[in-house]
């Protein structure tokens, strides 16, 4: 089992969609929300995903296909 820390950024059209719920039901992935900021037209969620690597990878691919931006969390990258 591995843990992956990621940030989901939702476009307006997906704000009301239960993406995280579906992620945990479509794939063998435990979702654990740590921080979030969601408003009417935009939102982001920082969460930890736990599961087998292939399940996490497949889950992240599905989330991206749905139109959510997925960024890894490794201390928050700064400018270069």
């Amino acid at each position, binding site marked *: 089992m591995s843990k992956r820390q990621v940030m989901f950024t939702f476009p307006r059209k997906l704000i009301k969609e239960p993406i995280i719920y579906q992620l945990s039901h479509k794939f063998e992935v435990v979702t654990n929300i740590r921080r979030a900021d969601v408003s009417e037209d935009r939102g982001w969620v920082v969460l930890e995903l736990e599961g087998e690597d292939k399940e996490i990878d497949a889950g992240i691919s599905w989330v991206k296909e749905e139109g959510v931006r997925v960024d890894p969390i490794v201390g*928050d990258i*700064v400018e270069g």
Partner: protein
Amino acid sequence: MKVCDFCLSPVEVNYDYKALAGVLSHEKISEGPATMWRYRDLLPVEGKGEIDIGTGFTPLLKADNLGRELGLNELYIKNDCLNPTYSFKDRAVSVAVTKAREFGFDTVACASTGNLAASVAAHAAKANMKAYVFVPANVEPGKLVGVAIYKPNLVTVDGSYDDVNRLCAELAQRYNWGFININLRPYYAEGSKTLGFEVAEQLGWRPPECVVAPAASGLLFTRIWKGLQELSTLKLIGPVNTHMYLTQASGSSPIVHAFEAGSLHVHPVTPSTIVTSIAIGNPADGYYALMVARQSGGGASSATDEEAIEGMKLLAQTEGIFAEAAGGVVIAGVKKLAAAGAIKKDQLTVAFITGAGPRTQEIVSDVVHTFHVQPNLESFNEVLGVQV
């Protein structure tokens, strides 16, 4: 070392200010070297093994010519083009590479739009460490040379800077390297605050009334503020009533958008601008930068690519400073803020110029207008119309 276990936020360096207050003084600092390391007591390093290539204590110049153009009587330029690799990144990297060596890393790495890669490669050379630097494949040729001269492992990546960042974020989880702007981020961040220290010291130990600085991730902007706050906490300067204004390129201005919308939520964008050194679509410190802009009574301003180039030319032609496009964005920001009355004519204002222009000089190649003459006086007189 990377993120908070609880909220997954970036971790911060803390200091024992009470203990420092008994040790630090204007005199002690002024006895230090004429580099950023004169502030070593306020940097998160152990011992005296810093990797120093002569960074910092760059000029703070009274910009009378530019001030006249913009209607400002007390305008200063903090010229950080004059660092060893020509950008403020040397401040951050000097601390981060010093920490990398303290932690026992033998390799340092970074994702970069060019300036950071040059700085990391230069400091790795000085520290006898291996370096892997990653840049977008379309980075300007001048920047590649400015990196390659230090002989790092230079990796070009098909994709945007955000794509390079994502790759590096994955690599940082697989390789035991010190990624300067990822797993060494807290230390990288601390180096930037020396800009705030220096400006206050160079102004005779007082904070400016207004600051105008570029924002990419937003980190530098917040660290200038932190530097001023720390000096005030230690009673090395008085209360900080500085109005903090951040500037971004219009084609990559998610922080400005959020400020204008009255929000603290930064919505990522896909950058589209020639101002590549500050083109970050998903700024990690956007929230904190917004907080600083709001709490300080400052603001946010953006500039189009054309305005940035105009700003570069104006700075060069009034003050003799050839800045990169991000500097042009800052000058355009000062111009707009002054015209709007946000910055008053007699307010002591510091504009931060954080990178030099020559690496990306092709964007202003239209300035070249020559007089072509034959090697004799007649030709010279004929072409220029000058009577000898």
